[in-house]
Structure formats: structure tokens, C-alpha cells
């Protein structure tokens, strides 16, 4: 028990002693910090004095100074060539960087009249001070005149931005009342010997003529106070002293008059209703500063005190009472404003825009400098708010887009370059990106990867989270995302990327909503997906300009002689181009949609339903499919000539499993390694491309429609089912590509497409020597580098094709199969992708080659921006 009591006493004494060391009126106070210039560079050899005891800063500007403990301290820092700096404090200050203002320095002859005019560039904003002193007016502290020329320094101070002495204490003329000044403008003037060690003052009875400009924030107030006072700052006690009378000169926007003391000179009105703020830090490290702007109706006025935040509790003294002040947290090192501060009252209510009222004045006679716990002061708490992180999708690191483009916030399984930054510059911030948003059960998910340039081929993002350091400069940091296979979006922008500060469980400093948009099994669409899909088709069918009818016409014309789209290797690539074009047009109208597919390897009752593509019609041989009244396809018009425009499909039950009527995908993938050169022989099948077209595609066109429009190439695209069918065909191609790693040119012994070669309209090989095809294939469209009609604008007649394709802008009204409305595809090129970083960046003539690497596995920018829900990028 005894030992316990002694232990407690020992600890208590030790604690008290430690506390006294730096803060109490007894013991020692240790001041430390750095003296820096306006650019943040250290200033060596600066004089740092506290309560009369001085030291010099080291070359890097650092200093440390022990002084006897006191109730208050006056810290003065000076250096020849800079305006001095002074700070009153209750405590030892240890973490601050003291920023000196560079002065205009010149050598003058004290025997003659001296006129100093501040010509530094800064004065263009705040005005220039002019000081004239009569000849032989200067004396040293002992009253001796200078022996020769003296060094003169002048700096007009931007007190509205925190320059000048940090405190504005005055006493009433009779010395009985404490008060404060509200500054109209200030200047630093100093005369020294050449080394700066001897300071000269005006000798007794001498005065200088001064014109001191009014700072911008006080210009509206100056005319109301035509008479004011000049004050000088007494560095020995930290009080401003009367220095002469001033008169406002409207012409020069300055107070003019005489002064009898030189140091900091200030035009001011003394006030005696002072308040103070107790500022408690919560989560903000010591070492920052608090800038306090006086506000009147939102307009700043007077000086701007800067309070060093060197302790958990701090006090700002001698503020005008009942006045709104705007608080700004300044970085202790850079002086940059940190935007992430939150100000609360003591019970935790946040204050709007960090504006605080200083509260009532401290009663007359009470100490305007109350000691801890600063009870008379209006108490506030400042907290570290979160940095604001901005995330953008589909933007390259070097892009200079001023605003985010929400229309490109759509991704697939393919890697997508994105970037993040701090919105407001400040300190570097470590963030962790996550994508695990609770509360959005059907939302999509993304995976992350660090950015690499060039992006490695066949690689996508695979990490659940990604740690990034966002530089305080606000520079963009690139990263890569990809949709997480198995969890695509179901609604627009239902995938949320979150930027957590520190770690994945840290607070969220920014979010980005995007959509993992993939082509899905149409049998499994949610009601919302179905509704958007159908609405988009209705809009596309009805709109002017590029519309549905043009694409049905495109397919009709493509199926005529010289067909690039059927019975040759371009069957898959040509249709992929057509589908992509249509899908992008749909997405302009409804960005959430993709070309969903009809998977015929199982029953698809929800596809052939009155709520989607139409239930089988009733009666007869072919009938209009049955749509529910609320289906946007109800009333669909095929625009076929001589007809009522009704869709026609077989009346057999399409909702049942086709039972293998179309060759199952797995079988085709297992059976064929070669993409194939194809053959014009209808019955010849020896490759994947042949088999897909004949065993899957052809049967699918017939199964639900035998004899209906979908059966015939010149009418098939009049039925919107065409697109679900061809999306399935394209999915089969994608599935096969993945199984065979067939995304590029020759892979092993397997060609992913017939030979790299170009064949022009005349049947002439553009690259002779590479490969000479047989006559069967000596036609445009069969080779990797052939342009695709109609986007290439060619007509395609050759000795080896039966007839010419029509030009892509002219319909054929004489042809009875031509629809009522008109052209094929306006323009001659495939339009540029709305989403940046996808093919094509500019309107382009598509070649077969462009349609192969749809995920951009070799180069993400060659990606086409679509994928299938069950065809992953990787395992």
C-alpha cells in the first residue's frame, strides 16, 4: 500500500514538472519551428526572439529556443530583406513554419531626405506605401546618427490575407482598457546598418510623412472614417502604440499623415468589445494553422489573423465581438487551404460553411487573454473532414476533360482505364477503392488493377480492392477496372466504386456510379431490363435519321448478290459489325441496353412471351405474334411494301425447348478448331464458321418462323427477333473465340480468320504473293483486310460476283422488296464510338480485322465495348 502511494506521488510530481517545462509560468518554454520564405524555402540566420531571448535559425530555417516560462510570450522573427513577423502566445509554439514576406530593400543616405516607395509586384493588388523622412532624422538605440548609408526595407502588407503581426492588441489612451484594432492597412518599414544588426529609429521630434494604402477589404469602409490613427507595433510587448494621426485621401485610397516610430505601421480604429474563440482540435494534427477572416454580410473586412494550432485546445484572442468569421484550415507546411475541415459547436452540430460567430464581448475589466481552459471564449471544435475524391471512367491519365462525361460510364469484362484524383489540393491521401455496396442486391461489381502502359495483352483486372496514393497536387492517378464476371448490372449506374480513406473500411471520400453493361440471356432479364430494352426498340423504330428501318434495309441489300454477310467467312464479322452499329444506336437512346440474346440451347419461354418478343400467334399457319398491350412492340410495323406491316411468325409453340433443332454451342466449339475459309457450297461444312451459319443460324431463322419474315434474308431483319437471334450467333462466335484463344491473327496453326489479305472490287488482290485464293473466294469481303459494305461505300461488282451491291445511300424504289422508307446507312463510315477508348476513335471504314478482338485483348482501345454474360474474359 505504501509503495502504491509513493508511486502515485512520484508520477504526479513528474507530470507537473513535465507540464511546467513548456507551458506554465514557471520552468522553461521551448519554442521551435522553421523560418521560411513565401515559397516555403528555409531562411537561415533569421533572428528568432522570444520575450527578449534570441537565437538564429539554422541554414534550413529550423530553430529551437528555450526561454523562461511566462504567462505570455512574444515571438519575433526578423531577417534583413524580409518584413518581420510577430506572434503573441500563451504557450510555447513548436510545430509552425513561420513565413516571412520579402521586403523591398535599398540603401539610402540618412543625411538627405529619404523617400521610400514600395514597388514590389504585390502592390499592384494592395497598393503601394510611400514614406518620406527628413534629412538626418535617424538614430540608433543610443541616439547616435548612422555613420554612413543605411539599409532601408519596406513591404506593404496584405493584412487581409494574414500578413503582418499576428496580433492586434491595444490599450486605451489612459491605459485602463484592453482592446484591439481592425486594420485598414499596414506596412513594414525598417532602417538598419548594412548587417542588419543595428536598427535605426526616428529621433525624438522627427516625423515621417506616410501614405498608407487601404487594403481592398476595407476600401468601402474607409470614407466613413476620414480620421484614423497610425499605430506602430511594439515588438517588446506585442501591443500597438499610437503613432500619429491619419486622414483618408480618397484620391489615392490611402491614409496620409505623419508617424514618429518605424516598424510595423498600421492605420486602425481601436475597438474594445473583444471576443475570443476557443478552438479544440478533433482528429486534426497539431501544426496546422487557422485563418480567421472577418466577415460582414459575407464580405471580408479588416485583417486576417492566423492562429497557430499548436495544441489540442487553442485560443484566438481579441476578435471583434458578435462578428461572423470564416475559418479556414491552412496546411502547416504549405499554407494551402485544406478544404476538408468541419467546424462544429461543442455539442457536435456542424456549422455551415465553417462560419462562426465570435459571440459576446468579454466583459470590461476581464482578461482579454483568458488562460486555459479559455472559459470566456466562444468554443468550437474543428475536425478533419474527408478529402473529396473524384473518379472518372474511361478516361486516360493525360486527358484534359474539364468535366466528367456520364455517357461513358459503361464497362464490360474488358479492362477499362479510369482515374482518380483529389478535388482540392492538400496533403497526399491514401485511398482504397472497393466495390462492395450493400443495399444494391442486383447491382454490378467491378474488379481493379493497377494501371500499366502499355497494358499487358490478355490481362484484365482481378483484384477486389485497389490501394492508391492520390497526390496532394490533385494530379490524376490512373487505374484499371473491369466488370466482375457473374455480377453484371441490372440497372443503370448500379455499380458503385467507393474511395475509402486509409483502408477498405475507412470513411468514403468519393464514389462513382457506373454500369457493367453486358449482353444477357433474354430469357432471364428483369422486368426493368426488359422494359428498357423494348422501349429502346420502339424509339429506334420511330425516330428520324438513323433508325431501325435503315438496318433492315441494310441487311436486305447485303443479302443480294455479292453478299459479304452470308456464305463466306465474313458471316460472323459482318454481322458483328451490324449488331454493334445497331447496339450503339440503341444505346444513344437508352444507354442501359445491350443486344440481349435468345439462347436456344434451352427453352426460352420468357423470350417468346407476350411481354418480350411476342408469344406465338393463334390460328392458321403464320400469325402476328401476340404482344401484351403494354409491350412497346405491340403494333410493330415491318414497313414491308404491299403488306399491312404485321409481323409474321409460325404458330407452333416457340416456348418449348427446341430439343437440339439448332446445333448446340458446346458441340460446335468441341468440333471445330478452324475458323474456316467457308465455301459457297451450301452443303459443305468443315469449319466453325460454316457450321455456325448452316447448323445454328439457318435453323434458328426457320424454327420459330418457318415461312415468316425471319426466314428470308431480304426480310429477316424486319423482325426484332432477328437481333436476339444474331446476338446468340455472335455469342457462339465469342464463346468459340475464348475456347480457342482466337482473338487475333494466326494463333499456333489456327487462323482466327482467313488470310490477311485485301481484295478489291475488281477481284484484284491488293497484296499479291501472300495468298491467292481460289476463284470461289476471289471476292471482296472474304479476307481479313477487306472493308465491309456498306460502311466502305463500295458496290462490289467483280467478275466473281453475280451482281453489284447498291451504293449505301440510295434505296431502290423500283424494287418491290424495297421498304417504304429509305436509305441504308447514312454516311459512308462506321461512326466513332461514343465511349472514348473503344474502337473506332474516329469514323472508320470497318474491316473484318476490326471485328475480331472484341474485348480488346491485345489492345484495350481496339475493344468494341460489348460482351456476353456467360463468356468471361478470363477464368
Amino acid at each position: 500500500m505504501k509503495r502504491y502511494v509513493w508511486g502515485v506521488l512520484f508520477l504526479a510530481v513528474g507530470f507537473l514538472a513535465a507540464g511546467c517545462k513548456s507551458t506554465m509560468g514557471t520552468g522553461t518554454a521551448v519554442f521551435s519551428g522553421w523560418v521560411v520564405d513565401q515559397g516555403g524555402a528555409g531562411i537561415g540566420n533569421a533572428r528568432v526572439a522570444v520575450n527578449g531571448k534570441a537565437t538564429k535559425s539554422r541554414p534550413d530555417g529550423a530553430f529551437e529556443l528555450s526561454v523562461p516560462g511566462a504567462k505570455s510570450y512574444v515571438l519575433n522573427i526578423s531577417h534583413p530583406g524580409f518584413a518581420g513577423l510577430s506572434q503573441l502566445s500563451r504557450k510555447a509554439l513548436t510545430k509552425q513554419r513561420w513565413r516571412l514576406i520579402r521586403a523591398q530593400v535599398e540603401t539610402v543616405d540618412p543625411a538627405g531626405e529619404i523617400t521610400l516607395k514600395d514597388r514590389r509586384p504585390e502592390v499592384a493588388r494592395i497598393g503601394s506605401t510611400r514614406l518620406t523622412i527628413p534629412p538626418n532624422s535617424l538614430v540608433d538605440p543610443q541616439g547616435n546618427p548612422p555613420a554612413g548609408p543605411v539599409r532601408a526595407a519596406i513591404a506593404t502588407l496584405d493584412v487581409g490575407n494574414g500578413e503582418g503581426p499576428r496580433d492586434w492588441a491595444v490599450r486605451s489612451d489612459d491605459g485602463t482598457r484592453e482592446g484591439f484594432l481592425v486594420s485598414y492597412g499596414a506596412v513594414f518599414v525598417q532602417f538598419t546598418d548594412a548587417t542588419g544588426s543595428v536598427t535605426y529609429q526616428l529621433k525624438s521630434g522627427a516625423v515621417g510623412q506616410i501614405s498608407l494604402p487601404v487594403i481592398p477589404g476595407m476600401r468601402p469602409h474607409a470614407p466613413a472614417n476620414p480620421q484614423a490613427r497610425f499605430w506602430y507595433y511594439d515588438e517588446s510587448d506585442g501591443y500597438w502604440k499610437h503613432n500619429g494621426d491619419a486622414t483618408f485621401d480618397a484620391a489615392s485610397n490611402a491614409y496620409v499623415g505623419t508617424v514618429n516610430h518605424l516598424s510595423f505601421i498600421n492605420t486602425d480604429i481601436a475597438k474594445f468589445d473583444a471576443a475570443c474563440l476557443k478552438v479544440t482540435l478533433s482528429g486534426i494534427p497539431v501544426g496546422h494553422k487557422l485563418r480567421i477572416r472577418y466577415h460582414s454580410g459575407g464580405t471580408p473586412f479588416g485583417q486576417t489573423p492566423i492562429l497557430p494550432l499548436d495544441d489540442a485546445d487553442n485560443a484566438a484572442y481579441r476578435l471583434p465581438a458578435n462578428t461572423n468569421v470564416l475559418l479556414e484550415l491552412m496546411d502547416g507546411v504549405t499554407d494551402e487551404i485544406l478544404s476538408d475541415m468541419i467546424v462544429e459547436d461543442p455539442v457536435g452540430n456542424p456549422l455551415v460553411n465553417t462560419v462562426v460567430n465570435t459571440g459576446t464581448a468579454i466583459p470590461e475589466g476581464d482578461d482579454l487573454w483568458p488562460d486555459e481552459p479559455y472559459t470566456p471564449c466562444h468554443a468550437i471544435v474543428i475536425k478533419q473532414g474527408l478529402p473529396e475524391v473524384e473518379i472518372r471512367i474511361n478516361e486516360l491519365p493525360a486527358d484534359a476533360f474539364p468535366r466528367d462525361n456520364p455517357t461513358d460510364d459503361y464497362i464490360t469484362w474488358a479492362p477499362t482505364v479510369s482515374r482518380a484524383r483529389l478535388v482540392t489540393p492538400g496533403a497526399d491521401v491514401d485511398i482504397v477503392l472497393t466495390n462492395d455496396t450493400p443495399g444494391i442486391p442486383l447491382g454490378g461489381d467491378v474488379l481493379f488493377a493497377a494501371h500499366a502502359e502499355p497494358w499487358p495483352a490478355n490481362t484484365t483486372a482481378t483484384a477486389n480492392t485497389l490501394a492508391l496514393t492520390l497526390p496532394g497536387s490533385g494530379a490524376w492517378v490512373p487505374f484499371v477496372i473491369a466488370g466482375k464476371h457473374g455480377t453484371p448490372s441490372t440497372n443503370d449506374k448500379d455499380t458503385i466504386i467507393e474511395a475509402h480513406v486509409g483502408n477498405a473500411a475507412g470513411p468514403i471520400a468519393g464514389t462513382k456510379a457506373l454500369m457493367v453493361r453486358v449482353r444477357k440471356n433474354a430469357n432471364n432479364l428483369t422486368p426493368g431490363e426488359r422494359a428498357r430494352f423494348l422501349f429502346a426498340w420502339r424509339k429506334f423504330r420511330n425516330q428520324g435519321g438513323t433508325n431501325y428501318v435503315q438496318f433492315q434495309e441494310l441487311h436486305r441489300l447485303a443479302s443480294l448478290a455479292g453478299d459479304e454477310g452470308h456464305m463466306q467467312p465474313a458471316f460472323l464479322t459482318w454481322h458483328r459489325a451490324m449488331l454493334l452499329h445497331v447496339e450503339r444506336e440503341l444505346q444513344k437512346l437508352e444507354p442501359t441496353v445491350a443486344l440481349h440474346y435468345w439462347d436456344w440451347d434451352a427453352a426460352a419461354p420468357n423470350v417468346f412471351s407476350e411481354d418480350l418478343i411476342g408469344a406465338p400467334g393463334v390460328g392458321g399457319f403464320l400469325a402476328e405474334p401476340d404482344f401484351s398491350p403494354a409491350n412497346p412492340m405491340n403494333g410493330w410495323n415491318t414497313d414491308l411494301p404491299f403488306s399491312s406491316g404485321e409481323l409474321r411468325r409460325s404458330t407452333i409453340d416457340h416456348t418449348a425447348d427446341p430439343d437440339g433443332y439448332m446445333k448446340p454451342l458446346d458441340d460446335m466449339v468441341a468440333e471445330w478448331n478452324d475458323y474456316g475459309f467457308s465455301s459457297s457450297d451450301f452443303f459443305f461444312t468443315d469449319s466453325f464458321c460454316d457450321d455456325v451459319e448452316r447448323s445454328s443460324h439457318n435453323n434458328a431463322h426457320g424454327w420459330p418462323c418457318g415461312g415468316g419474315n425471319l426466314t428470308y434474308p431480304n426480310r429477316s431483319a424486319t423482325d426484332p427477333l432477328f437481333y436476339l437471334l444474331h446476338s446468340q450467333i455472335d455469342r457462339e462466335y465469342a464463346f468459340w473465340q475464348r475456347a480457342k484463344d482466337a482473338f487475333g491473327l494466326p494463333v499456333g496453326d489456327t487462323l482466327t480468320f482467313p488470310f490477311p489479305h485485301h481484295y478489291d472490287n475488281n477481284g484484284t488482290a491488293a497484296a499479291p504473293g501472300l495468298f491467292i485464293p481460289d476463284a470461289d473466294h476471289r471476292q471482296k469481303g472474304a479476307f481479313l483486310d477487306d472493308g465491309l459494305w456498306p460502311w466502305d461505300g463500295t458496290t462490289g461488282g467483280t467478275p466473281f460476283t453475280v451482281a453489284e451491291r447498291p451504293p449505301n445511300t440510295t434505296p431502290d424504289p423500283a424494287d418491290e422488296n424495297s421498304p417504304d422508307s429509305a436509305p441504308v446507312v447514312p454516311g459512308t463510315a462506321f461512326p466513332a464510338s461514343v465511349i472514348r477508348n473503344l474502337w473506332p476513335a474516329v469514323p472508320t471504314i470497318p474491316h473484318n480485322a476490326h471485328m475480331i478482338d472484341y474485348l480488346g485483348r491485345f489492345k484495350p482501345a481496339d475493344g468494341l465495348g460489348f460482351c456476353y454474360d456467360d463468356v468471361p474474359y478470363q477464368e
Partner: protein
Amino acid sequence: MRSKVMIRLIPLTVMAILCLSLAAQPARPQRGSEQQRAATATFLDRQRPETERLRAARLLGWPENKTFPLLLAVGADRAESDAIRFAALYHHHRFSREWLDTILKILDDPNDGGAELDAKLTEELNRRITFRLPPEVRQRILTIWRKLLKDPRDRVRLAAFRALAANHDAVAVNQLDESLRRGSGIPIPIPDAIELLDLNGPVNHITALRPFLSHRDPAVQGRAARALALDPESRPRIVELATSASTAEEVRLHALRGLAREDQGFAAYALPLLENVREDADVRFAAMKAFVGRMNYNSVPAREQIRFAEAVERFAKERNLPPKILRQTAETLVYLKQGFPEIQKHYEGR
């Protein structure tokens, strides 16, 4: 009393059995799987009962390559039943030259196969001849089908007309057109003939079709009304049919569907029909559905849209409507509010 209950229960029982049998349908076997091979063996086994073989046929899926010739052999075998032969040829999903030759040989031989087999093979062939069929092959097929236009068997003849009309074959279409004009010697049932001319493009057959607008058989009159809605001369009569309570419901429904596509003045009689609570619910529902269809793909004045939406709103609140009509009417009202800005604005303002 008891027998009445039994009579009511019988259809329910049949439906339940049907549903159960559908639900019990085994999953489609993988190609090359034991299940598929077993089904193939069963189907090819002539010793097995026909019902068992036909059940096995449903599990054939996409046959293995070695199975295709075996299926062709069964399909060509006159000793097999027509049902088995058709199943064999149907499940030969590959459109090979051999398959086509087999089919055409059967169709070309009046003594090979019964009416059902020939008709079904014609229909199946029609489903398979898609896209870039070589011209000479197409010609072979058309030639044989044209022969079947004179086949004495009604079922076969109908199948041939359907297949050819779907292919816009002039021979078949002209034969139908002329026979309808004459009003005699019509080779297939009149509703089917009208359907095929409608399919071919009713503009080309208006004269042939007009007389049937007054036909007594609702199946004929209805199809004629739908096909002729694009004929301005016929339209007043079709409107009369659509709006008259004495017209058969089947005719009214066809007439409304056709008129909605073609008649600019559709609202003038479709809206009163929908608004008339004494009208038949099915007709009102058909008018509503046709009107939305018209709005989807035609320009309809805002005041008509709003009047229509309000009528739909009242319709959705009526009692004693069949549940499906009630549900779809309510869905339609939601759709109208979402899909048409004028209606949306109207309801937002209320």
C-alpha cells in the same frame, strides 16, 4: 349431379396429366452422352414399340455425326410408320444434300408416305430453306411443291400452298387469287387462302378479297376484314363490322386489329367502343390493345391520347372483368403514363 361434376373434372384431369408430363420431360441430353446414345439406340430399334421409339426421339438432340445416315435410312424406309419416318427426318437437323434428296424423293412419289407425312415434310422443308439456298436447289424444291398443289389430299395441298405462298411463289399465289375471284375451285379452305394472300401482300389481291367481307363464316369474314383494312373502299364496311354488336366477336377482333394499322380515323370509333361499358369486354380489350399498338408506331393527337388514357383508367377500375383483362389493363395504364409524354404530363398535372 354427380355426372356433371365428373364432366367438369375430366378436362381438369387431362390438363393436369398434360402439365405433369411436360414437367417430367427429361433434360436434353448432351451430344455423345450415354443418354443420347441410349435414346438413339431405342429410336433405331425396330423391335421396340412405336410409342417408345417416338418418346426416345425427343431425346435425340443434335445427333452424333454417325447417327445422321441411320436417321436417313429410317426416314426413307417405307416399312416404317409415317410417324417414325417423320421423326427420323425431323431429328436429322443437318440440312445435308442427302437429307434434301430423301425428302424430295418422298414428296415426289405419290405412293410413298401418307398425307400426314407429306404435309409435315413439306412444312419442315419450308422451315429449313432459309437464306442463301442455291438457286438450282430452290428450283428443285419449288417444282415438287408445285406438283403438290394438285395433290388430291387436302392436308398435303394446304401444306404446299402455304410453303409456296410464303416464298411468294407466283404460281401458287395466282392460283389462289384467281380461284377467290371466281369464287369456285378454291383449292384450300377459304380462311387459309385469304391468310396466304394477306401474307403475300394484300394490296395485290384486293379485288379477290373484297367479296369475302360479306361472307357468312366469321373465320372467313374476319380474315378478309383484317386483310382489307388497307383498302380505303372496304374500310367503311370494316368499321361497321368492328363497331356493330351484332357482328361475330372473331370478326370484330380481326377488324379492329387491321383498322388500327391503317385507319387514321381509328380513334373516332375505337375510343367509344372502349368507353362503352355495355360493350363486350373482349372487344373493348381488343380496341384498347389495338389503340396502344397504333400509338406505339403512329402519330396520335394528344387529346386522343389523353382521352384514351382516361378511358383505360376507367376500364381498369371496372368490376367483373376477367382477371387477365383487368391485370393487362392496369399494366397498360402504367405503360401509357411512362411511355407517352403527353399522357405523363396530363397525369402529373392532375
